[in-house]
């Protein structure tokens, strides 16, 4: 699906990540973790073709991503950022229908019946069948996140990139969102999501891609990453591991557990 070889990313004058090598396959949910400013969003933007690598290559289904046109890329990659504000008054359905843009010919102005069916399926996949006519501006943060996901689904992209989809969401809504992402991965899509909460990543992701010290520290199963001690290095603070009542491994900064010096 998507692979990086000796990838090096720059932000302004500064190299922020170098020598990244990884491969992410269809059907996987990969959580991208790392401290603030490490380059998580830049990595996502590079994969989405919106940030040119300083050196190295990014391959999308075996083809270098630089050579893929914007429309072709949009049919394969859906990139969902949570920050951008919507200034125009649009209904939920209008927002999601925009995802059909890359599938239209240059002369096609309107959605056809097939487009309408795909938008219906996207609405259903995120549990918002009854929200189609609602103005986007009236939605809650959690509902808006689901709309952005539905927009990506309407693109029929096989790779979903998400930048902090659970920020600003309460615990229950955040878990519903992550559950949705895992469902999409099980349905065969590759899901790559930047997350801030290590434990959310541990619970829902198939693998964790851990960035720190200007490089890729690990890309592995959550339990292996948590046990590796690399979280301490990435976040610059000692981490404590604990077992949740369910038996799953959890990590906390040691100051949170009251055991730091």
């Amino acid at each position: 699906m998507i692979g990086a070889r000796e990838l090096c990313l720059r932000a302004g004058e500064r190299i922020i990540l170098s020598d990244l090598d990884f491969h992410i396959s269809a059907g996987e949910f990969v959580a991208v973790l790392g401290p603030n400013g490490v380059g998580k969003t830049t990595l996502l933007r590079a994969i989405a073709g919106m940030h040119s690598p300083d050196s190295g290559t990014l391959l999308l289904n075996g083809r270098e991503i630089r050579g893929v046109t914007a429309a072709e890329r949009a049919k394969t990659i859906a990139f969902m950022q949570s920050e951008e504000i919507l200034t125009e008054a649009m209904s939920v359905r209008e927002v999601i229908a925009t995802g059909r843009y890359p599938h239209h010919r240059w002369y096609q102005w309107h959605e056809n019946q097939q487009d309408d069916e795909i938008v219906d399926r996207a609405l259903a996949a995120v549990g918002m069948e009854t929200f189609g006519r609602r103005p986007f501006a009236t939605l809650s943060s959690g509902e808006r996140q689901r709309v952005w996901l539905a927009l990506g689904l309407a693109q029929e992209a096989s790779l979903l990139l998400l930048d902090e989809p659970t920020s600003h969401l309460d615990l229950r809504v955040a878990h519903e969102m992550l559950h949705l992402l895992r469902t999409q991965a099980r349905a065969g899509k590759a899901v790559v999501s930047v997350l801030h909460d290590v434990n959310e990543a541990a619970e829902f992701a198939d693998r964790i891609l851990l960035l720190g010290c200007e490089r890729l520290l690990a890309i592995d199963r959550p339990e292996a990453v948590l046990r590796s001690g690399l979280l301490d290095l990435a976040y610059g603070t000692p981490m404590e591991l604990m077992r949740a009542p369910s038996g799953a491994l959890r990590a906390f900064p040691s100051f949170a557990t009251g055991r730091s010096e």
Partner: protein
Amino acid sequence: MTLRLASLTLLAFLALLVSLLVGGTVIPFSQVGYAMLHPHAPGDVHVIVWGLRFPRVCIAAIVGASLGIAGAMLQGMLRNPLVDPYLTGVSAGAAAAIALAIAAGVAAPIVPALGFGAGLATAVLVAALARRGSGIDANRLILAGVSLSALFSAIVALVLTRLQQGGYAQAILAWLAGSLAGRGWHDLIFAAPYAALGLILAVLSVPALNALRLGDLRARTVGVDVDRAQWMILASASLLTASAVSLSGIVGFIGLIVPHIVRRIIGSDARLLIVGSAIAGGGFMALADAASRSLFAPIEIPIGVLLAFIGVPTFLYLYLRPGRKTA
């Protein structure tokens, strides 16, 4: 929404019809209908309808539609409701060239073409200044447009001051206030190809413009080549505006407020908004021209002045009256 668009079309059609009926003299509907159906029949009514009013109504509709489309596109691209088609510097550049040309005694038939060329050249200059990387920076575009417009307005003021109250000053003021007096088919033949090119670019830009409602970044993620779309929209708006200015002089209000009103009626979907703004702009301009011809006949009031007197209070009442949300 389709019903609302149909209603808008019907109203615009009625406006065009009224514009054919009224003027210095009111001609009954039956006589206008007969003249329209028999273009080669003799008589005064035929001369008035085919020689004077019909070309003028067509020009009014094209000017209004062009300004409506250009305003809707630029407001959509920049996501800024304060933007109007003259932001691109077209009107100021055209006005300066026209003022200089009239002052220099250039033959009247050449003046509109000079205005068109200068307007378009100014738009190119504004676009060059607004360029950042391979795309357009919205803030730079607005700043460049406002700055150059101020410079060209100063040139016009200087020319007017030097000319003082002569006949040349009157001719320049007529351009600045906007008027269709004396316009005919020959003017339309000059401007039509450029307006048509602008329209084709607008039609091609509409799907991208619709996706741009999500913001530049999200539009990119759904596959819009944002840089290319911005250049196409700017080129289209400049061509349409320059064509309109060469036909009517500077007519304010339509390019700014018609897209606002249409957005209220049929929503922000660019596909409907562009069509609606063209229809409403055309109808509105035809009506304004009819009013300018007939209110104080035989004296014609400049359309720009009329539109400001009638349109601005209406707009203020609709949008800014106490208790109304200004969304």
